[in-house]
């Protein structure tokens, strides 16, 4: 229980402090740098939830416990919701700093690929009626696709010529360039959003379990 309150406090704190604290006036981004407190947290939450989903897919395959399948699918669904939020906040940010909603950037493409993979995961799930078979086959795809997505996120930025994201192509490195006051907001924001993400996932999971029990 205490960690849920902590998450709420951290998110509220970052929402308010993110707008109030002084930020360094960097070229191109200027005041829009405050979006770092909101946009970047979505990706950390997404990755956390997708990792939970993949771990539970492995757990499902090692014991064929139906509960692990519910965990896996609900974590993926919550993750995708955060991914969409990340894309929206990122697009708005991109529009006001680089002038376009979508640019050809490895981070953006990585985000798009993860969304496509999990969209395919849900299409695959929707195509089967037998719940045991659905759980088993989608768990296999989940694990395989997660690893492929990790490769995409790890190797692609290294292959790219330039990126608008931190640390590449002459842009300031995010965590090095962040000044101390910004860190004081950024880290709590990340932790807070991850907690909120996990909390939403748990609520969805509980709802799912009750529904499944009622249907029997």
């Amino acid at each position, binding site marked *: 229980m205490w960690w849920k309150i902590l998450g709420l406090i951290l998110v509220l704190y970052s929402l308010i402090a993110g707008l109030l604290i002084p930020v360094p006036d960097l070229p191109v981004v200027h005041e829009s740098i405050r979006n770092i407190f909101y946009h970047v947290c979505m990706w950390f939450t997404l990755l956390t939830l997708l990792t939970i989903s993949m771990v539970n897919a492995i757990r499902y*395959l090692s014991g064929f416990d139906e509960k692990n399948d519910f965990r896996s699918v609900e974590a993926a669904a919550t993750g995708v919701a955060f991914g969409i939020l990340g894309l929206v906040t990122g697009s708005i940010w991109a529009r006001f700093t680089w002038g376009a909603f979508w640019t050809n950037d490895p981070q953006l*493409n990585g985000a798009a*690929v993860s969304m*496509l*993979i999990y*969209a*395919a995961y849900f*299409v*695959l799930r929707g*195509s*089967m009626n037998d719940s045991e*078979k659905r759980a*088993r*086959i989608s*768990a*296999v*795809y989940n*694990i*395989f*696709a997660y*690893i*492929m997505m990790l*490769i*995409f996120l790890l*190797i*692609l930025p290294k*292959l790219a010529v330039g990126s608008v994201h931190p640390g590449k192509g002459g842009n300031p490195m995010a965590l090095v360039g962040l000044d101390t006051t910004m860190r004081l907001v950024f880290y709590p924001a990340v932790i807070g959003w991850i907690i909120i993400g996990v909390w939403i996932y748990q609520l969805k999971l509980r709802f799912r379990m009750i529904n499944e029990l009622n249907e029997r």
Partner: protein
Amino acid sequence: MISEVRFLLHKDLSLELRRMHHINGLLLFVLGTVFLCFLSFQSKLEPEKWNALFWIIQLFAAVHASGHSFSGEHPNRHIYYYSIASPGAILLSKTIYNFILLLITGIGSYAAFWLLLGSPVMNVPVFLGIIALAALGFASILTLVAAIAWRSGHNFSLMAILSFPVMYPFMIALIKASLLSVTNAGAASLLGLMLVLLLISFLANALAFILFPYLWKE
């Protein structure tokens, strides 16, 4: 295990040699697509576009080819295979079979491109090497996806949807590596990229080897 793979591969290959319908179908598919490109593009293609077009057609051919990996045979026969061979051997034999199929398709496709759209490739031996690496990667990744699509019961509608997202990392590295061999620039980074391709293939193969038994048993 190795003898099982050898027997299964021998079975697949001799079936194919007898009927020749997969390989002929694939070559015709590639030829038809390249001819369509020939009709559509009025001017000569720049190397960069040629390269992208070549690999996109290859990807479609590969998805098409590996989609048949498991659905081509009668379901009852799979039960028979299940009783005589280990899942790992089935997967490996299918992967090697797809590799051979895609290697032939790749070379045939290059020939068709060369004939109809011209060949801007400067470093032909390296380009052929990349075709072989591509066949290996396609076979490694797509054989497992084909098994997933086949088991879900909606083989052809799901094959493309499931395979494209997981193919992206490989395709990006592939197109970059191939462009370097086409323009014959940057030997050092080319070697690095080829290593990346090889690593992705091995990783995909290892994962498929671990995961396939869960798909194979009914």
